[in-house]
């Protein structure tokens, strides 16, 4: 989907992005994580040419982005940012319709698409279509921002700290929704964040950046298990590592035959949730059921603990 080769951006004497090679698989969520000043946003913004690279090449679906007119390239790529950047003088519906209108879609098609997206993002059309951005809550504004980014059904969606301005509870829900929507639409997402939790929660693959360099680029489990260097290790946090690890596995994967008392756990709950439920209810084991409620067996504290240990 995206192919970065020798990508470099120099401001003055400083290489904010330094010779990065990266391949992003279609249909996945790739998260670039790093501290501020790591070059992660610059990297993202080179993909839709908001920043022009000093050196190197970017291919999107096999096409060299530098060979396309910038505005046409950008219309084919979704873009959502932290402060949503909604146009304050346009209604919600008009905001979502931005790119389809730029592309000259037929009016009815645009209206239908807006309605479809508002439903997808749980915004009541009758209630919200005619409202202005300042009349929405932060969470609603953010959803409109993402809906707008996806309006023209881009194959690729770039997101720069899209949930950064949300409070933790709304952020968790927004992340879950994004993941669900991505699974449905198959959109390729390249997302930038400084939050390792978010990266692990969302990312099929995680790219860790520091000082303009790509430190490690691997699936979340690999990053947790085998951090490439001290920086990546630090970013994960020694204390949090086993818990991060547990968020990646599901209770279903740790099921063993046997009985246990008390409230059952869902098979698709994460091991992290399972651990929490066991600890809080003071049990050593709990029954596991699938989505239909059929008992699958049980999960024990020990089996969860095994999966939190550093893999060998």
């Amino acid at each position: 989907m995206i192919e970065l080769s020798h990508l470099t951006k120099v401001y003055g004497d400083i290489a904010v992005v330094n010779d990065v090679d990266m391949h992003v698989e279609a249909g996945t969520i790739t998260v670039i994580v790093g501290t501020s000043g790591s070059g992660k946003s610059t990297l993202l913004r080179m993909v839709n040419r908001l920043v022009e690279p000093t050196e190197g090449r970017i291919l999107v679906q096999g096409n060299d982005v530098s060979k396309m007119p910038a505005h046409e390239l950008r219309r084919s790529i979704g873009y959502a940012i932290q402060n949503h950047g909604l146009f304050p003088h346009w209604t919600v519906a008009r905001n979502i319709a931005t790119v389809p209108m730029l592309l000259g879609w037929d009016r009815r098609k645009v209206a239908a698409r807006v309605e479809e997206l508002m439903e997808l993002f749980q915004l009541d059309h009758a209630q919200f279509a005619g409202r202005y951005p300042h009349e929405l809550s932060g969470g609603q504004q953010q959803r409109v921002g993402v809906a707008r980014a996806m309006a023209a059904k881009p194959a690729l969606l770039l997101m720069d700290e899209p949930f950064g301005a949300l409070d933790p509870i709304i952020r968790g829900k927004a992340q879950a929704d994004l993941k669900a929507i991505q699974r449905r639409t198959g959109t390729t997402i390249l997302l930038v964040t400084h939050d390792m939790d978010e990266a692990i929660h969302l990312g099929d693959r995680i790219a860790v950046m520091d000082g303009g360099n790509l430190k490690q680029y691997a699936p979340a489990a690999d990053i947790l298990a085998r951090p490439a260097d001290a920086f990546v290790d630090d970013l994960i946090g020694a204390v949090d590592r086993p818990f991060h690890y547990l968020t990646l596995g599901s209770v279903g994967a740790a099921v063993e035959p046997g009985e246990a008392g008390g409230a059952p756990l869902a098979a698709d709950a994460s091991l992290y949730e399972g651990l929490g439920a066991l600890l809080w209810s003071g049990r050593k084991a709990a029954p596991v059921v699938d989505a239909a409620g059929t008992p699958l067996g049980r999960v024990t504290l020990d089996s969860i603990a095994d999966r939190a240990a550093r893999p060998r």
Partner: protein
Amino acid sequence: MIRDLIRPGTILRLVVFAALIAFLLAPDRFAGLLAPLTSNGAPPIYHQSSLVDLTLSHLFTVAVSTLAAAIVAVGLAIFVTRPAGAEFLALSRAVVNIGQTFPPVAVLALSVPIMGFGEGSTRLALFLYGLLPIFENTLVGLSTLPPAVVETASAMGMTGRQRLLKVELPLAMPLIVEGIRLSAVIGLATATIGSTVAAKGLGEVIVAGLLSNNLAFIVQGGVVTGVLAVLISDGFQAVARHAAKRRGVSSGAPPAEPDEQQAAA
């Protein structure tokens, strides 16, 4: 909308407007009101020219100059905020700051040697001075847009032109309207003084009153120009407020903005 219309301030303005129209169309009916201000049997109502004609040509002078100033000033402000005109940005800010210290009446007087007597010099002065507030306000409007909004406009794939027309100018509009209001108000005042350089306008009535020592002329000229200025200024403010309110963007400078240029001239 209906509620807006029945606000007491609106009713007052409508009454004042109606009274103004009534006076302009049939000034003689008000002769009794103004007669106590005259002495030695001087006429209470100005008759050398029709008040309607004077009002219309006064308004026309202001409208033409302000419109021209608006087109040029907005164009210049757009130019200096594009990459192509960036070199001129700092200087143009300084020139506008300096220019606004110039008394409008001095600009009027200095344009007489260039344009001669009559409407020409008044229009030139109004145009030149009118550029300043519109340019400044447009510049502020275009350079204080939320960065996230401007960036997303580009990121959505708008061309520079689309971004300007669909996003930047509409968002700057309340401030631009406020700039045009200031220009128009300054213009109305300066055009009054323009009567001293033989431009046709309502200042003529005041000047005639001063020359013939006729208080009735002075008062009718002064009240008509004053009322016109207040009503026109109110109209612009209502437009700016409406534009700002609907969009939830910062409105044109409220009356208490500290660095707002003042309108009197």
